[in-house]
């Protein structure tokens, strides 16, 4: 009895050591994940004129530089424009096809399903080059709406994923009840179904916006000199590492953070992980 008990505590102790080792290891992994953010924030407030860490003093010069450089502001406006356009287009197209996929039973549905999911599986570079080929024939290169169309292709699957999941959890009997009471199908959907899946649609919309706002490869090909923010950042990093980019980075993190908070408050959230 005694020895068995002792064996138990020894094992317990060993398990405790295991837990501590696991904890330390995971804190290091989380530290590795957070490191780039922890570096970018102080760099953006640096008073040094080049990359220097730790920063010698506090200054807002890089933020001022961002605000006073027309090309940075122009790129930001283009990105927001493209992002909003993508959001509207992808949300409408994605929600419609999500309804069709969840509710409909028709021949060829599996193929529609595959077509809609394909832009996630096909590498971005292939999407970008393919659309680039098409758009250079149509003389659409350099137009902001060209980038918007490219981003919409890429964003549709994300909207469908979120909206279809909500539709599957929605009981169509409620819609049938409304129709039984004399509402047309369209009216039943608008008054009964849409308000209930609204959080998912909003989340899908925010997801579409972030997808577009962060996207580089498609924009690299399709936007010309009138470029999006990621393209401008990319060219900036390649040519000269100017600390302005750390200020832009912080602003971008702040904007994406704001969008995430909004989607949590107004929608159903966009977290890829459920606690």
């Amino acid at each position, binding site marked *: 009895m005694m020895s068995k008990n002792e064996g138990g505590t020894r094992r317990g102790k060993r398990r405790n050591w295991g837990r501590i080792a696991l904890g330390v290891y995971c804190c290091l992994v989380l530290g590795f994940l957070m490191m780039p953010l922890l570096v970018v924030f102080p760099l953006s407030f640096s008073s040094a004129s080049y990359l220097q860490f730790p920063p010698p003093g506090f200054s807002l010069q890089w933020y001022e530089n961002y605000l006073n450089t027309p090309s940075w502001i122009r790129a930001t406006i283009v990105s927001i424009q493209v992002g909003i356009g993508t959001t509207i287009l992808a949300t409408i197209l994605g929600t419609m096809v999500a309804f069709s*996929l969840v509710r409909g039973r028709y021949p060829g549905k599996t193929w529609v399903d595959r077509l809609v999911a394909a832009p996630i599986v096909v590498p971005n570079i292939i999407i970008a080059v393919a659309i680039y080929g098409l758009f250079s024939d149509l003389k659409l290169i350099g137009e902001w709406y060209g980038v918007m169309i490219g981003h919409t292709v890429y964003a549709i699957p994300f909207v469908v994923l979120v909206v279809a999941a909500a539709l599957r959890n929605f009981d169509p009997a409620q819609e049938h009840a409304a129709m039984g009471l004399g509402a047309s199908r369209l009216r039943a959907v608008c008054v009964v179904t849409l308000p209930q899946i609204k959080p998912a649609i909003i989340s899908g919309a925010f997801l579409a916006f972030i997808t577009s706002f962060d996207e580089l490869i498609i924009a690299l090909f399709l936007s010309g000199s009138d470029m999006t923010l990621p393209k401008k950042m990319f060219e900036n990093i390649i040519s000269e590492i100017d600390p302005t980019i750390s200020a832009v980075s912080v602003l971008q993190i702040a904007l994406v953070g704001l969008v995430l908070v909004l989607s949590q408050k107004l929608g159903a959230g966009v977290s890829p992980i459920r606690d």
Partner: protein
Amino acid sequence: MTAGLGVLELFRRNSSVREHAGPIALSLPTVIFLLVLFAVPVVQLMLLSAQSGTFENYAKAFSDELYVTVLLNTFEIAFFVTVVSFFLAYPLAFFLTVLPPFWRAIGLFCLLMPFWTSILVRTYAWMAILGRRGIVNEALLSMEIIDRPLSLLYNEQAVLLGMVHVLMPYMVFPVFAVMRRVDPNLMQAAYSLGAPGWRAFLRVYFPMTMPGVLAGASLVFILSMGFYITPVLLGGGRVTMIAVLIEQLVTEFLDWDFAGALSLALMTFTLLIYGAFKWLMKSERNLA
């Protein structure tokens, strides 16, 4: 005539046309949009290489030493990124499941914050950390551990580091989701039947989390193969992956045919890997 009858028969078999009309009409705008702006251009790009009627481009892709090196390099990097991601993500996902709610929320925050930060921002930060005048070099110099800056950037290790940072969360999500569903009593049962901790883990716990690992690994591997930003910026032109080569062929050499051939190769490998993992997952489920 027979064709007309066939269509009629098809309609009759699927009860009424009107029943399908609504859902089909709803899917049409999206289907047309994606066909015209995505599917057709992608297929066209891939057929470009075959248009010449010969297999010259494919022969070039698989015989020219440069291209073979790039293909192998891409696979090698994707493989290492997947393996390293697993060893970082699996313990982290497990740790997150056993943490009390408050600390779990903090852990998830540290995971999601970088996940939502643009890849470009994170890559730039790695350049600031690893550069010649970067944080690591400055720190080591000031501590007089080294007397000349180390070249930490523009090599394969830097690319691996940057890619693991971007892709590792994609491994954590599915593994964490599966771990949350595992009944903790099963581990207790294994312990009480006398299995030592590691054995209980390997024989009971790990197999049950396998679906999550496979889902995560397939995601990481497939995303790795098409990577562009990290190899360009952290590899500084010295580390070429297939996506970088496709971009160069199109924008610098205007060699669309060959870019098409490489796109086809990348697409084929992506689908093969996707299929292989699907098959693994199925056989996994059949075993269980």
